[in-house]
């Protein structure tokens, strides 16, 4: 699994180019913007945390802050 992730990362970064500011119009579109609703994301992440050992999304560290069993 680690090798697969490393290959994916290398392939992704190797193929990228520097994008100019005026070429980022598509990245500014609403469907490309992250975390539109932080509360709903928090709620969903908490469910994932509580119903398994892993957080599963970036920035979601497992454990601490509540009496979750895992």
């Amino acid at each position, binding site marked *: *699994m*680690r090798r697969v*992730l490393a290959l*994916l*990362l290398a392939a*992704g*970064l190797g*193929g*990228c*180019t*520097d*994008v*100019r*500011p*005026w*070429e*980022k*119009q*598509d*990245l*500014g*579109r*609403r*469907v*490309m*913007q*992250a*975390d*539109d*609703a*932080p*509360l*709903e994301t*928090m*709620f*969903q992440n*908490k*469910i*994932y945390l*509580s*119903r*398994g*050992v*892993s*957080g*599963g*999304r*970036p*920035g*979601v*560290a*497992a*454990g*601490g*802050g*509540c*009496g*979750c*069993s*895992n």
Partner: protein
Amino acid sequence: MQQLTLLLAALLQEPANERPRSTEELRPYAEARQTIDMVQLSLNFYEQSDEGGNPNVKEEVTILQPMLLLATKLSEDWNASLMLQGDAILGRTGSGASGSAAAGTAPAGGAGGGEEEEERDGAKDGNLEISEVQYTGVFTVGHRWTPYATMSAGLSLGNEEDYRSLGVHTRWLQETRDRNDAFLLRFSMYFDRLDVVTFDGTDLGEDERRTFSPGVGYTRVLDEKTVLSLGYDLTWQTGFLSTAKNSVVAAGSEVPEVLPDTRLRHSLTLRARRLVAEPLAVEPEAGIYADDWGARGAAAAVYLHWEAARGALILRPGIRYYAQTEVDDFLDPGAPSLPARRTQDSDLGTFHTRTLSLKATFLKSWLFGDELDLMADMAERSDGIRWFSVTIGFTWGGRE
């Protein structure tokens, strides 16, 4: 007339390399929204049915969870936010079922065999009532040091029936001058105190749990339509890490759960988002997890972000698959002996989960606020646990 038609067609056509209309569009795939005034109210509902999992524990749970987020821009470079959350955990009269998946403690208690079946049947006929209320508050202050660097720090407080938590968190986001790369450092600590009351009501006094979690993130604009994000989190925990109310049934007796008092956890996630057509983006995601208790996990998900009605409605259907292996101390029900360390918590067992989700964002709310979010999740675990959740969210402000 023909000239007028040509002129109208030219006006309606968007040039491919048009300069963005605002600086907001220059930002890469990072959180821009927290820096402007916003109020968000979210009402969450979670229902879990118990048709498997741990046969010795009632795992049926219903939770109502209101959440409120207030975010404001204090000045050009400072912002603050306050998140308040309450969890009303509902149980049925006489069932004794309580616990929180989305909020906290795992449900526990109960005996095995026929009595358990009778209790479960009775629980289905009882009346729903609030068995526990939990509160959480998170306060965060953010500061923009330079046009490319922001830092935030804050405090969190949590209060549950047998559990109190104090946390601090901080994060640093550094973007490159061309805003094609963003580096993130984050760190959180929790100092938690809990009352150790076992499944049979025995009070063993207070204990503590400490959590330290550093993490790093990297976001890269790959091309005009694609962004890639990578995140890694390390979590170190010490103290009382068992769930006090969990019991283990084996070798003809029922005893408390006992787990190690330290735990080291690693979590790595990779995701990307690509605009594949004018109103449609696809977001694949993959993650792996490992800890020194012996558990391993892997998740894969795909979400679509589709602007179904321009300027009015965004739909986000998604599917997620998650699998994990049990911790080394997991004990099968019916084991012939009781080892010193043991658990039968089904969340620490081996299973896989399929989750379907759908979220609809109405960019002009037809109820309250400026925007309206509706979200539903439905999940089925291979050990028989099922749950679904529904969220309705209202947003005021938040966009320039």
